[in-house]
């Protein structure tokens, strides 16, 4: 039992901090988010080629670093601290775990290899237009007729879908529900019949796309693993993604706290630094309380994911709900405590605020995760 970061983990964090100090600087974030791609290709290349971060939680057998979810959480936390835009989350935290948990060894090697080396950017096409989280929201149908299969339907809210080389598409057999009939299909973005449209999203630092699949032909080798195992694999992958997102939110909360604390020390009103007023101090204290609780939840969940003790489902639900709330509270306070300037486009408070809102919705709202948790606690069904 050692619930503190190891020296190696501290080194990873320091490297990330150095990287994001340059690549996550406000003007770079803003310049990147206004481009059609929505992120800086140079920064991305450095992250995945030089730093080798895309493979951090992937096994060495597919070219990864062989580390785990705690190390991934550290990177996510530091990326979140500066609301950095990049396809890291979609590729490494969403698509890669889906492939890893669903794919055969051969599929893992062929698909994760290019991800680990930074050659491929990937996205998970999961949720249909209705927006329901989890398996219930799948909006694509896999129609099998004889040995041919076709994908039909639409996935919306696909994080960085417009920038992906590889799509992992969640689909259902016609008429299926729940864990039945779910498949995951690996689909190169350029496949015939795939229409990708970048959407206007509230959070400009994490663009989303709508992906329409118009009778897209699929071969058997594109279907990941055994059909009956796909739902469980996807559920497992989503839990890991929720934990990675929670870690990112923790960083966002911390970033909001740090920026606002610095502002409160230098901004003078009524002849005093506003940070000397209890009205301001106590809200900053509340931000820190929320941020520290979020860290405990996220680190705990990442640890559970790596050590296979305890319940991952529970830890993920706790982390995603608490870190979402903490980040939103901190970002909302960041706007409020900056006064008028915090409401402008020029100030970064808006970036944190929108990221907080959007990441709270992504992969299930706090309310959704608390209801999941209630079921895991054995409270039975709601009335």
């Amino acid at each position, binding site marked *: 039992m050692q619930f503190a970061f190891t020296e190696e983990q501290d080194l990873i964090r320091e490297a990330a901090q150095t990287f994001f100090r340059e690549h996550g600087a406000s003007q770079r974030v803003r310049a990147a988010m*206004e481009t059609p791609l929505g992120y800086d290709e140079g920064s991305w290349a450095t992250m995945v080629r030089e730093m080798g971060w895309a493979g951090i939680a992937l096994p060495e057998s597919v070219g990864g670093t062989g580390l785990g979810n705690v190390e991934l959480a550290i990177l996510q936390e530091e990326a979140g601290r500066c609301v950095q835009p990049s396809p890291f989350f979609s590729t490494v935290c969403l698509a890669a775990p889906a492939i890893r948990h669903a794919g055969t060894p051969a599929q893992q090697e062929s698909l994760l290899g290019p991800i680990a080396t930074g050659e491929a950017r990937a996205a998970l096409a999961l*949720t249909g*237009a209705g*927006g329901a989280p989890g398996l219930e929201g799948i909006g694509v149908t896999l129609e099998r007729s004889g040995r041919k299969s076709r994908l039909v339907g639409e996935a*919306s*809210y696909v994080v960085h879908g417009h920038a992906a080389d590889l799509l992992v598409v969640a689909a259902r057999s016609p008429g299926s529900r729940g864990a039945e009939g779910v498949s995951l299909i690996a689909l190169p973005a350029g496949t015939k019949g795939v229409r990708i449209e970048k*959407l*206007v*999203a*509230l*959070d*400009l630092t994490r663009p*989303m796309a709508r992906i329409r699949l118009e009778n897209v032909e699929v071969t058997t080798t594109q279907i990941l693993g055994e059909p009956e195992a796909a739902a469980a694999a996807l559920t497992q992958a989503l839990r890991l993604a929720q934990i990675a997102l929670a870690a990112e939110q923790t960083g966002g909360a911390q970033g909001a706290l740090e920026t606002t604390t610095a502002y409160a020390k230098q901004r*003078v*009103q*009524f*002849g*005093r*630094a506003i940070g*000397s*007023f209890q*009205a*301001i101090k106590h809200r900053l204290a509340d931000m820190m309380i929320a941020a520290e609780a979020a860290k405990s939840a996220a680190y705990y969940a990442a640890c559970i994911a790596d050590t296979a003790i305890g319940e991952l489902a529970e830890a993920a639900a706790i982390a995603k709900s608490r870190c979402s709330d903490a980040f939103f509270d901190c970002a*909302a306070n960041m*706007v*409020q405590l900056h*006064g*008028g300037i*915090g*409401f*402008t*486009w*020029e100030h970064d*408070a*808006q970036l944190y*605020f*929108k990221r907080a*809102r*959007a990441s709270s*919705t992504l992969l299930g*709202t706090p*309310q959704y995760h608390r209801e999941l948790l209630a079921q895991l606690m054995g409270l039975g069904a709601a009335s």
Partner: protein
Amino acid sequence: MRLDFSPQEETFRREAATWLEGQLSGPFADLRTGRAHDISAPERRKEWERALGRARWSAIGWPEEYGGRNATLAEQVIFAEEYARARAPGRLGHLGIELCGPTILALGTEAQKRRFLPKMSAGEEYWCQGYSEPNAGSDLSNVRTRARLEKGPNGPEWVIEGQKTWTSLAQFADWCFLVTRTEEGSTGARGLSYLLVPMHQKGVTIRPIRQMTGEAEFNETFFDGARTAAENVVGAPGEGWKVAMATLSFERGASTLAQQMGFRNQLDAIIGAAKDNGAARDPLIRQRLAEAYAGLKIMRASSLRMLTSAQSGKLSPEAFTYKIFWATWHRKLGELAMDVLGPAGELGTAAPYELQELTKMFLFSRADTIYAGTNQVQRNIIAERALGLPKEPRGGA
């Protein structure tokens, strides 16, 4: 204590409703939006202001000689309700009609009243407010914009230097009412004056401030040797703080009822969305919708309490709490809207960054707890002025 209206008042209601309906299903049908914050089509909306002015519906509480109707409180309540019910557009002239006009009425000279009020109520001159500065946000007494009297071609003039911020509607305004330091070396609330300054002159520059919605409804306004005649000061020179405080108190007039009707339109849109997408069946959403609805009804009751008290000359306690109540309520309404809309609420309608109405409201509502006194400043005011608690020690700046 009674909430019903007399037969005469009901007659007045019908008159107002009939006029509004005639205009808004007739010549001004294009303005029937019900949106409170809307700065599109300014010329068209100035036509609407003039139509209101011609029919004496622009500032009904004012004396007839300045374009009003000497309307009673009940009549003002009724008109505000009917105006919103008719989904009439937000008033481009509201800063003049609701803030500066009542200040001039209460504290201005007879000459100022005759010069400014009729054009205000007629929709011929528009106003913006110059209070906030980059270093005088919550702390208005920290104003650094300064003015000195100089000889001008037609007599002495105030010459103004400085910068104001959050000047909404400045781009459409003919005049600005502004708080400026007129006694050199003065600090705090002393030595300020309340000046009326023409906007169309070389020394005034307006720069839009882009907000987190992506739109620019506010401005920074720079005064660089801008001029106004010496007589354009309301109250005595150096007494501007008191005058400005009086203006702040006028923000609590019958216009709060109009604001509430705008809120009601937003709540109705959220309820509609909740019914459409099934969120209305979610017991948690239901609680929050009910809470929002209750809050709105309470705001109406509080407004009626305030207005009735104001009429009798008493300062009522709920007046202190009104601003923070509605601002906090509205901010929560924005969060509720987003939770009702779900992921779909986070998608825009057009590139590069055109958002849905309710999404914009969610973002815009974050400013409600900041402008016109942050929630923190409001709580200080309530604690010190309404509850009589000791003042916070001030720094020695």
